[in-house]
């Protein structure tokens, strides 16, 4: 699955991280300036809606950049389909 094809999730991520969708890239740093409790909870809601999976907040909280976040989501999607 190519997560970037999930347009709605990508658009949500852009809003949550306060960037344009075109500015999202795997190296985008997630830190206290854009990755707070409300951002993480909102990402959980979006992931749940777009992929039908629940990701724990702690797993997202540990992500230091967007690439790591996408890996967590990808792994959760694969776990579900196994």
């Amino acid at each position, binding site marked *: 699955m190519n997560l970037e094809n999930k347009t709605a999730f990508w658009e949500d991520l852009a809003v949550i991280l306060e960037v344009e969708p075109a500015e999202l890239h795997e190296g985008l740093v997630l830190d206290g300036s854009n990755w707070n409790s409300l951002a*993480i*909870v909102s990402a*959980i*809601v979006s992931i749940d809606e777009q992929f039908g999976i*629940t990701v724990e907040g*702690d797993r997202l909280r540990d992500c230091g950049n967007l690439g790591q976040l996408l890996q967590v989501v990808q792994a959760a999607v694969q776990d579900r389909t196994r």
Partner: protein
Amino acid sequence: MPEHPWDLTGKRILVTGASSGIGAATARVISQWGGVVVLLARDAERLRQTRDSLAGPGHALYQFDLTQLDDIPGLLKRIARDQGPLAGLVHAAGVSAVMQVGIIKPHHLEAMFAVNVHAALMLARGFCQAGVKAATGASLVFMSSAAAICGVAGMSVYAASKAALAGAVRSLACELAPRSIRVNAILAGAVRTTMHEGLTVNRLSGEAIAGYERRHPLGLGEPEDIAQAAGFLLSEAARWITGTGMVVDGGYACA
């Protein structure tokens, strides 16, 4: 007036959301105070578990999805016909969510308002039908939230629905007083329920959860704390109370 003014003996009360949390606790309190409960929720198995936990005989359960708005008045008519007229209602069913305003979509609004507001108004409408309300009158209690009067980041949709409900209660109280129907809201603070845990545990950090708890000077509530307030509003002790929003929040709104 009964021997104890909070006694609910002889009153049949409909409780929505009765399969868990505040609804289940309210059903238990009503039964312990002598009332008969009509339990309503979507999950039949958990409804049976709640019924089995009640005091006294005569309680009934109805499996129903409150998003079926058109069917609500007919359901109340059927309940009154099958069980007898209703002396009250506690609308404890509710939907909650936390998210940034930036990712809100129309379906979030529709889902939240359907149960929290639209179903509440349809339940009130149901009580206006002949034969539904007990001859002695009725007390309707709607579960609003401290979020209706206190701002919390990420709670805009939920707060909007609960504020809408509190507003509706005031108008309903004026309109239904001539029919001997009292209408009140409970503005509840955070209570330890499955729904609350679903919004916090495994989502917020332990530090964030502790910070939210600290905003309640008396700590987080238990479902019984809300249930007993609902029981009071249902009882004759509250016979001169209508149109109010009773804040039951462990001090959250004043902190």
